Structures are given as structure tokens and as C-alpha cells.
């Protein structure tokens, strides 16, 4: 949040956090978009797909992949725990730079040992995704 260009500002925050931690690992997370609808909060996280395209990719594929071979699972577990605590929906969105394929994954069940074991997934093209996302924004309470 700032009085300047928001697109650049998100990068500025990340840069500030990195600087303030002096290179230490972070124990924190962030949330890309937070919506509030009549049914409650929705946490959304965008997952950029580079090597495997969104329709074929899945967060479970990268569960144990990541920095220091520890994996992304902590990020998903943290999001899931926060969603559970706040009775929120958790939606993960696979996307790619070409904007051709989008997979919207509503997580229904997740655990450390079972990974994401229950979900409702929908494959979309960019037009479908835009319509879906804009509808979510419109439904979000002001």
C-alpha cells in the first residue's frame, strides 16, 4: 500500500523484508489476494508454472521441492492452517506467463502426510479465468 505505483510497491515490500532479515530465512508468509464474500473470506495464492503447464501441474508435485530441499509444503500448510483458523476458503491458482492455461484449485483437504488430498479443480482459458476472477472481485464486499 502506498501513494506510488502498486505494481512496483509489492516488489519494494519484498526487498525491504529481505533487507530487514539480513539474509536470514523467513518464518513468515504472504497472501496474494484476500477477498471477503457473503460466505466468508477467501485466500488466493497464485502459483506460476514454468516447466509444467498449469493443466498438468499440481502443488503436490512440488510438495518437497524448494529451497534447501525442504519443500513448498510449509507454505501450503501455513495457508491451510490460516484458512482453517478463519473458516476461509483456500484457492490456489496455477498460471503461466503466456496466459493460456489456468487451473483453479479449491483446497478441501490438506495435511503434511497426505498433501492436498481433497480439492475441486477447474481448468480455464484466460477469458474464462478473467470472468471468474472479476466475478470474485465483484462479489467481494467493499
Amino acid at each position, binding site marked *: *500500500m*502506498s*501513494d*506510488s505505483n*502498486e*505494481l512496483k*510497491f*509489492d*516488489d*519494494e*515490500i*519484498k*526487498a*525491504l*523484508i*529481505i*533487507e*530487514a*532479515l*539480513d*539474509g*536470514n*530465512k*523467513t*518464518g*513468515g*508468509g*504472504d*497472501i*496474494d*489476494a*484476500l*477477498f*471477503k464474500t457473503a460466505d466468508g*473470506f477467501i485466500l488466493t495464492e*497464485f502459483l*506460476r508454472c514454468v516447466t509444467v503447464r498449469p493443466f498438468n501441474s499440481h502443488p503436490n508435485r512440488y510438495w518437497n521441492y*524448494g*529451497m534447501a530441499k*525442504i*519443500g*513448498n509444503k*510449509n*507454505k501450503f500448510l*501455513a495457508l491451510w*492452517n*490460516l484458512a482453517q*483458523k*478463519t*473458516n*476461509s476458503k483456500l484457492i490456489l491458482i496455477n*498460471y503461466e*506467463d503466456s*496466459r493460456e492455461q489456468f487451473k483453479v484449485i479449491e483446497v478441501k483437504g490438506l495435511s503434511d502426510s497426505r498433501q492436498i488430498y481433497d480439492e475441486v479443480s477447474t481448468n480455464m482459458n484466460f477469458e474464462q*479465468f*478473467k470472468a471468474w*476472477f*472479476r466475478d470474485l*472481485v465483484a462479489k467481494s464486499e*467493499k
Partner: protein
Amino acid sequence: MSKESKSIRKTDDSAMALLHDILGVNATKVADIDSYYRIKGTYIFLEFIKVSEPLEGYSPNNNWEMIQSEILRLWEFTIKAEGSLWLICFKEDRSAFRLFKVESATKEQVTFQKVNDFDFEEFKKWFQLLNAEVLKG
């Protein structure tokens, strides 16, 4: 979150670029959470606010109309999470930081339990202590 969390990497923030492609200038109206932590089961949310005016004497109420929509959303979420919300106001050149722990937020105003004035080194100490507490698990 646990001690195994990854280091934050500098990115080109492609997620924000995607939001921009979908919503145009309205992308800035989508609320996000800049940073959150969990210490012994209690959530702490940090919202960063870059301030162009001098921080001495600054209050988020000064430009409440402009920022209230996002802060109110975050505050409502914080209550739901039974956590705490800190507004981290800072100067772009890192010369000063003013931290506000939110006590309540309404459409009219935001009130605070605590205000801390820090220079960058002091802020780093505060932030690293918070982070270390999380990593302790």
C-alpha cells in the same frame, strides 16, 4: 509456519502483473497480506505503508480515507484469526520506521495500542526477533 520455511527471493512479482492484466488499474484495490507470522499458535499480520511525509507525528488516520478499505479488511481478518495487526509505516530511504499495533479500526478512524519509532537498525532488530520467534516453533 516453521523453521524450514524458505528464504524470500526477489521476484518480478508476476502474480501482481497477472492481477494487473485482469483488472487493470483496479488491481490495486485487491487486498493482500504483505506478511504474516504464527508464534505459538497466534497470528501476527504486518501491513507495510510507505509514507512520503515526515514520520514524526504521522498517523495512518492522516490519510485514513485512502487506506481504510484495505486496513478494515485486514482488521476484520485479524479478528477472525484472533491475531494482531501491525501497520509498518516507513520512509522509502529507510531513514525512519513508525510501527502501530492496531487496537481497533472503524470507517471513521483507526486506534492503536502501541506506537514504536525506530531507525532501520532498530526495526531490523524488532523484525528479526519476531522472525526468530517463529522459527523457534
